[in-house]
């Protein structure tokens, strides 16, 4: 197993863990953390796939995509955190509730 395959597998596992935590947990901050972790897994997969060249230099196009992706991820995280704090301020609860009324 060479280096790109190892990091690609780590990226896929991170994506899976993040997706599971996004679905399972109810607190909004945990969902945002889980989205960030799965995003990091996707970036790891992209950059590891860029390393599969036969020469010494990696492919720079996925590097540019991941750089763009990091900036977009931080803006989405900031917007999500602002909305979550506002939800907590308005309703007193930062956790999602069940659908059926109690």
């Amino acid at each position, binding site marked *: 197993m060479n280096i790109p*395959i190892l990091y*690609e*597998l780590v990226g*896929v*596992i991170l*994506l*899976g863990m993040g*997706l*599971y935590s996004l*679905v*399972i*947990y*109810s*607190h909004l901050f*945990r969902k945002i953390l889980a989205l960030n972790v799965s995003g990091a897994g996707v970036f790891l*997969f992209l950059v590891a*796939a860029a390393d*599969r*060249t*036969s*020469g010494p*230099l*990696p*492919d*720079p*196009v996925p*590097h*540019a*995509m991941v*750089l*763009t992706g*990091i*900036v*977009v991820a*931080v*803006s*989405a995280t*900031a*917007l999500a*955190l*602002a*909305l979550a*704090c*506002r939800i907590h*301020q308005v309703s007193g*609860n930062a956790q*999602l*509730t*069940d659908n059926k009324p*109690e």
Partner: protein
Amino acid sequence: MIRKNGNHLFSRPGQSIAAIGVLTLTGILGWTVWTLPPFSDQMSALISSKMPISGVDNPVTAVLLNFRGYDTLLEIGVLLLAAVGVLSVAPSAVMRADSSPSPILVLLLRLMLPFIILVSGYILWIGKYAPGGAFQAGAVLAAGGILLVTAAVRFNLSASKAMPLATGIGLLIFLIMALATMMVCGNFLQYPVTLAGTLILVIEAAATLSIAAALVRLFVGVKSDTDPPASGEDSKILTFEEENLIK
């Protein structure tokens, strides 16, 4: 409203179903990873052959600002959009520190802010030859801006006229360059070969300012509690010397 399951959103069978689904997805993706072809050289060979006409020496900067410049233009637009969104959730966000920041933070600000500006300028400049560029420089400058917002007492960043200009100038300059090159060279964002390096540096400098300003606005938008600011004495801008005299 405490639900039955504490932290979790589903009951036990629902969690098991989610776990099985995620494990299946991960297994399929892992099998795909294992059967990918070992080498794929087309794109890197193409870019290495086109590097002399791109105007820079760093392949990642060439791809970001020249070959796929449209993506970077839209990305700066997305950052601006997120800043607008965050400020619309917290409309009375005032970029001002708390009334008594910790003295460690104030010392850190005084020592590090000149170095932050210097390092940011260096990273922006070196992006042409070595790893660096606009995004990294903008992020370092945003760190300096966040230090300023949390530690500088009586420095009211939102009363300054330069902040909206700094937030918008990256997208503005990029669009102006794109339209100008469209009028000169025929295609949107097609730089003339002799001017490519200079144009990229100008666009990156404007983008650095814009990225830093947008990231600081994002931070302030998350930080602020939507309480209206106290009127009166904190709305003037004082400099650090005056702050020393007051203390």
